[in-house]
């Protein structure tokens, strides 16, 4: 990108020539010359992206009405009129240089140049076409808003602002991508946010230069600490209410243009197990669901491996009846149990992948039909035992009970390592794996916050209420303090008013 600042010329023809030269071959960019004032002596032109700015939008805007008024105005009055009236109009702002004017146009606005006037006028528009506010499909809840983030970053910012109507909610904009010039915004509550986090994320966003950013996932990978870890170090959400809740916890939301998913930082293991409903429901129900989800993590990771360990090495732990039924179920299966489980796990991953890629309702259907047919046929053909199908199905079901897909994916991947460990070394292998995994998780940090918070580091950053919102959630009235992310000294979020 050319960083040289080019001032806007008083001669509109020079400006037009510059724009035309820059936009040579860009058929979607409209440059519309006009003449204003009595006798039509003042030349001007509007440039905009064809679909991003519709004629009707231009006419309906306040600026459109101002232009209509200038149509027959004496020439001498035009410039003071522009200067005095355009300022203060909500959808209009003045631009000082050609670079900024070009950026404004490429961002989906109309830009007006008037002869003899050394500033361009940005007429805000609805911008590029996007999907608008959608339902949050991947984070469904039974209670709470169904609104999901849209593609446009400005819309997403507004969705958070709608929930936190306070000027302490700051929105800091920056751009990433040398060619895509993608808009990123950091949303946080001033006074609650830890300045270290803010400084660090800004530093990391400047760490790389990239030609284009198409999704927040690209930003995430560029800004994370340990790229080798399968665990996500930024939390993702497509729910504005969740994002707003996290802002109130002192965390920072990173929004990327053209992405309906917000990144939340810093993040911890426990955050991935939480859902926004956890705040809305009663504590007993939430605690039960939380325990189920933690159980799901363990099952998704270890069930297949432990099954292999038990039937290959430690059959003595099973009661005789169960052992016999296992043996009966495996009768006629020619493969070792390790291959059997691997076959079923790979089949499950194929079904899942096909289900995700299949259009519309076919996706769900392929999951059920594929699972039933392949499972049944594989058992019928003596390729696998029914017990393996049960174990793999339970393990798969558990992985779906983990609320965050990025997080669940990490466990699905690591599970394969555990399958080999359990299949080849039994409980000893599983034990080694668990120890190694715990070591890895203990070393993982997200912006200086240990990943295993709140189970560790309760003394960090002035301390926090570690046990009240982790494996289980305490009654709402007990959750008086914010988590570790919030600035020290700004921890109280709930207090009882004196009657």
């Amino acid at each position, binding site marked *: 990108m050319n960083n040289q600042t080019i001032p806007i010329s008083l001669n509109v023809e020079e400006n037009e020539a510059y724009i035309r030269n820059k936009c040579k071959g860009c058929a979607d960019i409209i440059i519309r010359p006009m003449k204003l004032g009595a006798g039509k002596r003042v030349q001007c032109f509007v440039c905009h992206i064809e679909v991003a700015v519709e004629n009707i939008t231009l006419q309906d805007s306040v600026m459109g009405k101002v232009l209509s008024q200038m149509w027959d105005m004496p020439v001498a009055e035009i410039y003071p009129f522009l200067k005095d009236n355009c300022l203060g109009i909500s959808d209009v702002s003045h631009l000082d240089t050609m670079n900024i004017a070009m950026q404004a146009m490429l961002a989906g606005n109309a830009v007006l140049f008037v002869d003899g006037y050394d500033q361009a006028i940005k007429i805000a528009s609805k911008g590029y076409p996007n999907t608008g506010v959608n339902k949050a499909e991947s984070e469904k809840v039974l209670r709470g808003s169904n609104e999901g983030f849209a593609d446009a970053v400005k819309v997403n910012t507004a969705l958070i602002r709608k929930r936190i109507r306070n000027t302490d909610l700051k929105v800091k904009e920056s751009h990433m991508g040398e060619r895509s010039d993608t808009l990123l915004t950091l949303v946080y509550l001033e006074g609650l946010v830890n300045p270290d986090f803010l400084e660090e994320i800004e530093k990391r966003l400047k760490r790389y230069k990239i030609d284009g950013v198409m999704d927040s996932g690209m930003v995430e990978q560029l800004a994370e600490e340990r790229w080798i870890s399968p665990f996500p170090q930024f939390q993702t959400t497509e729910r504005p209410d969740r994002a707003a809740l996290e802002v109130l916890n002192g965390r920072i939301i990173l929004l990327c243009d053209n992405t309906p998913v917000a990144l939340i930082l810093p993040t911890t293991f426990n955050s991935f197990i939480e859902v926004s409903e956890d705040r809305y429901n009663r504590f007993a129900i939430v605690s039960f669901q939380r325990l189920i989800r933690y159980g799901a993590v363990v099952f998704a990771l270890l069930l297949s491996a432990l099954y292999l360990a038990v039937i290959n090495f430690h059959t003595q732990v099973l009661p005789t009846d169960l052992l016999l039924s296992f043996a009966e179920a495996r009768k006629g299966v020619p493969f070792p149990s390790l291959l059997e489980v691997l076959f079923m796990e790979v089949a499950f991953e194929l079904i899942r992948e096909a289900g995700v890629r299949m259009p519309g309702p076919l996706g769900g259907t392929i999951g059920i039909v594929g699972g039933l047919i392949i499972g049944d046929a594989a058992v019928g053909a003596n390729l696998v035992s029914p017990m393996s199908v049960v174990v793999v199905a339970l393990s798969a079901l558990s992985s779906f009970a983990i609320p965050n897909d990025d997080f669940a994916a990490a466990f699905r991947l690591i599970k394969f390592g555990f399958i080999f460990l359990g299949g080849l070394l*039994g409980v000893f292998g599983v*034990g*080694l794996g*668990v*120890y190694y995994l715990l070591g890895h998780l203990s070393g993982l*940090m997200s912006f200086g916050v240990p990943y295993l918070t709140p*189970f560790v*580091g*309760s003394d960090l*950053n002035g301390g926090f209420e570690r046990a009240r919102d982790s494996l289980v959630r305490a009654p709402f009235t007990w959750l008086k303090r914010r988590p570790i992310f919030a600035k020290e000294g700004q921890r109280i979020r709930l207090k009882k008013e004196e009657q």
Partner: protein
Amino acid sequence: MFGENERISQRQLGRQAVLVFLGLFVIIAPSVATMRGRSGMISCILGTLLALCYLFYLSRMTGAYRNPEKNLGKVCSKIVACIYSLYLILSGGFIVRLLSEIVKKYLITNIHLWLICGLIVLVAAWGTGWNIQRRARIAEVAYPVIIAGFALLLIFAAVKVPIENLKMSEPLSAASVARGTYQYFAAYSAIAVVPFIMDRVQRSASAGNRLMRSIVIVAVFILVCLLVLGAAFGSQGIAYHRVPILDVMSGVNLPGEFLQRFDIVWISLLLFVLLFAAGSTFFYANHLLERVQIKKAHIPLALLVLVIACISYNGQSIVDIYAPALQYVCAPVLLVLSLCMSLMQRRKK
């Protein structure tokens, strides 16, 4: 950033101590002849008191260890660090070998011992990393699970064993108690390295209290273990078991009896704590060497531990010679070194 300060909290220090000692003591203490019956229990209590006194003494003289090179001189500090490290390497070899034998006997029989040792060294050394905070966090997270697991399993065992066997009628011998007390105290020799890490602990002045609490927790578990084992096998019967606590657990069932044998859970817990203990020896040996500017010792340390664990001469391995080595060499040497460090500090003052 605020989470990365290369310091650990008192809670993390205390929990590390429990995890390091608990597994080892639960396995070894009941198999030591002097630790059985009434005299064993008295030895355990007296040994704990001695260890607490030793710890109190060590926690008062952390200043001497803060900058070994300055206090002892370059050469002398290196020698001292090497002696401490040698003790830790020996302990590491012992733990790895002990764990390998348990794994081979109880978990996976058709595999070479050296391969088990290799896997243990690999995971214990690199799984935990060489970072003090990482180790501390492992301990902090695993502690409640391990303690709850140990407590539950001991309760299940206590319910199962015939309590009428617990007679404790054998005569008390002062010599046996004295010997047992010393042996129990010698097993705590590892606390001699505590002053070296105190400057990495938050509010280090009071960190000794936390460690004392950990030693008491371990002692409580050991006493319960001795009681359960005494009831299960009788004071004399324990002698016939190489790892009595594992054997007693093989007869324990879960309520509901949906599993035939439950001892695999017990072995898994022991596997975890012993891996942690082995990792501790690597970490602290390396840490001590780094304090005296001996860098990049990770790989040689791990290899040395592996060699010590794998070597066996005339059917004797490190498991057989560790106890006498600890009692007659390591414990006295470390005690003398601690005294010397204290004297040096006083002389400097």
